[in-house]
């Protein structure tokens, strides 16, 4: 048997090794993509349209589709999510039957694999409601998918607002809705913005439910009823046809754009978190 000291040393080494492995994998993924892709991310690549063959292929239509998708999804899901969170924290009696039902449903929604959302979205929004493969169908599907994230994060932000704010508001004779609007929501704002940024990340990152509902047409969508290909779907399609060097370069460049976007979103979240932490103390 090993002595206790050797055991300790072994376990300590194992934790350091594990953390190193985690970091190395992250660095490897990020570095491999950036080092192969960064030089191909030119202004031209970002702003020109996709031509499939030749050197001039860009990702502008995919950027437009992704932005459409993010904006539309958030404008559907954010109000509903925030209002649900307000209902759960400010109105509903904690532990009542209806709260239990709502919470159960939100938790279940969070557990459904995203491909099932795609399956559902394709039959319900695309076919049954007749929206066709469109940004709108994709956004509606993703709205349900990100709803749990928005509700939970907003709820936490609302619950972190001190009770005295509410009491103060009511003591001054403010109505409930006025107190929520003028006192509770503003002080929960950093948390709500974090929820929104998290959702932006989710919408940008999803691919399976998106290509089943929004399709993969490479044109710039002219309206929300047009089909569009988002950046992640584009990267997926590119990897299905990696034949020439040009296609490899495009795939690396697209992956680079995605990673840079994620880095950027993480940075904003961090900035909000630190600024808010400084303010409150």
């Amino acid at each position, binding site marked *: 048997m090993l002595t206790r000291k050797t055991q300790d040393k072994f376990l300590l080494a194992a934790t350091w090794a594990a953390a190193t492995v985690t970091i190395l994998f992250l660095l490897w993924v990020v570095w491999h993509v950036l080092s192969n892709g960064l030089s191909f991310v030119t202004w031209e690549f970002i702003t020109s349209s996709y031509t499939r063959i030749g050197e001039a292929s860009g990702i502008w239509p995919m950027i437009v589709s992704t932005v459409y998708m993010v904006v539309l999804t958030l404008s559907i899901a954010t109000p509903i999510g925030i209002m649900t969170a307000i209902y759960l924290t400010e109105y509903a009696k904690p532990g009542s039957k209806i709260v239990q039902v709502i919470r159960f449903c939100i938790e279940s929604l969070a557990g459904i*694999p995203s491909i099932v959302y795609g399956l559902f979205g394709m039959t319900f929004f695309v076919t049954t409601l007749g929206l066709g493969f469109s940004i709108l169908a994709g956004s509606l599907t993703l709205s349900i998918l990100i709803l749990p994230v928005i509700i939970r994060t907003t709820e936490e932000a609302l619950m972190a607002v001190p009770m005295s704010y509410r009491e103060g508001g009511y003591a001054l004779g403010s109505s409930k809705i006025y107190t929520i609007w003028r006192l509770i929501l503003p002080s929960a704002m950093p948390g709500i913005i974090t929820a929104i940024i998290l959702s932006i990340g989710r919408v940008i990152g999803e691919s399976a439910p998106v290509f089943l509902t929004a399709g993969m047409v490479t044109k710039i969508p002219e309206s929300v009823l047009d089909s569009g290909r988002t950046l992640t779907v584009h990267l*997926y399609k590119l990897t299905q046809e990696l034949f020439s060097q040009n296609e490899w370069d495009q795939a690396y460049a697209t992956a680079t754009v995605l990673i840079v976007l*994620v880095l950027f979103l993480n940075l904003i979240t961090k900035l909000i978190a630190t600024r808010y932490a400084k303010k409150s103390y």
Partner: protein
Amino acid sequence: MNIGNKSLPQTAQSIPTKKRDWIGIFFHILFICSALVGVFSLATIVWFLFSEGLPAFRQAGVLDLVFGDLWLPPALFGIFPMIVASLASTIGAVIVGVPVALFTAVFLAELAPQWLANIVRPAVELLAGIPSVVYGFFGLVIIVPAIEVIFNIPAGNTILAGIIVLAIMILPTVITISETSLRALPPVYKEGALALGASNIYSIFKVLIPAAKSGILTAIALGVARALGETMAIIMVMGNAPAMPGSLLDPARTLTANIAMEMSYATGIHASALYATGIVLLVFIVILNAVILYINKKRAY
């Protein structure tokens, strides 16, 4: 709101005046309706899943569909190879990923110097944010060719490649939740162990980890859910042959991949069979959630 205008102080009961606060009522109703959107969404999804999937079960038979070996739409709809592939890749990812994640969580919660933890933690969060297609792409260009070379096989698109990619992808989930549950333990646990003369490492591994067991199990269960539900990265690295895999070095198609690959052109009973695939996938998720619920019920000490 204009309390100042009211000349006389009012009693508490008289404050809600007869002028009913219509705006307040309107918003109250609006908030309730919003909260019910989630309920209706879930109901619609479940209803669609079952009404679309049941015809396939009815036509092929539940046992033939779940345990059938052959997927030859529109004639045969056996999804057992996909069940095996999903379970193999998920269990493999857990075996490879969870030890690394757990040790990293211990490192972050207990052993790392503050400055180092402040670098590793954001890195883990970043790992969580990277889109799954990027992991799939990485797997395709690095892991798949590496498997071809190491095992000297013609195509590296195998279950093994899927396991490695999924193992990386579940790291952030398992690390973050395990770390949180380790940090949530009252400090007296460790202080007590140290006071009894146990070493720092001994008290972490023999006192703290057992104490945080339920949180760690929840973390693992959520990792399993992520691995089981992952679609695009798996499609990109696992080869997608709908045949029964014989070993880890065979290509395979998971339940999620089966849906994603064929849904865009499937019609009739074929589409219904894909819904049935979704139902089977959901059954696994429900079982997993029941496990999480059971773990957390037991946690209520």
